[in-house]
């Protein structure tokens, strides 16, 4: 499969910027969805990467803090493998928000598919 980044796009910076914008919202949904099961930062990042959604540490870890501040996640310090780690999990509010976001996501996805399946110019 061709990596879109390998394409000789006329304005790679513009593409990067648009790609970043597109990913930003999706990443939040992905993180919330992944945290239906408990994770700490590093394992969450690995789990997302295993699913094909790699996120930089410097993006993910502060994002977790922000989502927790917004009440969408809860966290707990716990010892694992003789080391204290901060485990995150989706809060009740987070679950409700995730449901709403997924509904929105599906609606957008459906609309986009309909638009893309129209013959050109219609």
């Amino acid at each position, binding site marked *: 499969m061709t990596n879109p980044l390998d394409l000789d796009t006329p304005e790679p910076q513009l593409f990067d910027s648009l790609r970043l914008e597109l990913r930003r919202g999706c990443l939040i949904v992905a993180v919330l969805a992944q945290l239906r099961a408990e994770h*700490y930062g*590093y394992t969450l*990042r690995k789990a997302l990467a295993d699913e094909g959604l790699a996120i930089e*540490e410097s993006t993910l*870890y502060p994002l977790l803090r922000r989502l927790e501040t917004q009440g969408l996640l809860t966290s707990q310090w716990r010892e694992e493998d003789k080391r204290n780690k*901060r485990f995150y999990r989706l809060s009740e509010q987070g679950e409700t928000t995730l449901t709403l976001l997924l509904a929105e996501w599906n609606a957008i996805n459906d609309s986009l598919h309909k638009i893309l399946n129209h013959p050109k110019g219609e």
Partner: protein
Amino acid sequence: MNLLERYLQAIGQYLPPSTRQDTLAELRANLLSQMDDRAEELNRPLTDAEVADILRAHGKPEQVALRYLPQRSLIGPTIFPFYLFTLRRALPLVLLIYTIVRASTILFVDTGNIAHSILQAVLQLPFTLLIFWAVVTIVFSVFEYGHFTRHSCTPEKPWDPTSLPTFTPTANKERSFAAKIVDLTLHCVWFLYVLAVPHNLFLIMGPGVFYLNSIAAGYAPVWHTFYTLLIVLLSVQLIIKIAALRPGPQPWKAPLEILVKLLSIAGAAILVHAKTYFTPTGIALNAHTADVINQSLNLSFKILLFVLVITLIVDLWKLIRPSIATERLAF
């Protein structure tokens, strides 16, 4: 692990004390897990270089810390449109006031070199605009701070779409070809008329030429310089009008018209600077009468210069305004 501690210490410098320890402890745990995984892959402890690679990939300490800080803005999204609106609306007013004040100073107070005074006024304009921008920004920042700290929970007033102003389509139609031809023809006639002036001064001065001959007034050398500039100006305008016959967008037109305005200003500035336009060539014209004529003409040219500068500022504003609007849309 000395390198890790040094890295965390560097990040900690930029973090607020209230969350510093907690954030660093979490980062430490995540980074140590990552290092453990890497060591497991390699089946040996990591070297300092490998630890450094992991930390390098994690990011510069100040950038990492910055991402943990709450996003701050001097003027938030609620107030920002009003801030931009105020800047856009007030800018022409500031330019107008500045021009009036500086032009009045140049015309009625300054006694020195007029070209120097104009140059000084133009050079000081960016500083004035900077002060204007700073004052507006400070006022809106204070307003934003007040708005933010009040935590006002009052619901927004409902707005009525029917109260919106009526739609007026913008007339951005291209001029017809016939109109362009008429414009070009008139310009050619005007150009030929100006070219004929040196051979027959009556064309430009009318019966005044007989009066000047009768009082034995001679023409000062400034008219030669002015005439040459006028021919250049008319030639540039002729090129613009011929090129404008071509249909389609003409992005070059506006900058060239600004050039024409600049040439006009240069011409007016030359006349203002000269101060002497007619000199006595015989005993019929005494020095006092020549002075009165010259001073009156000088005042007229100063007014002309003032009007041309204002026109240039307005045209420049029209030229840069679309790009400002585009940037605003990008927000």
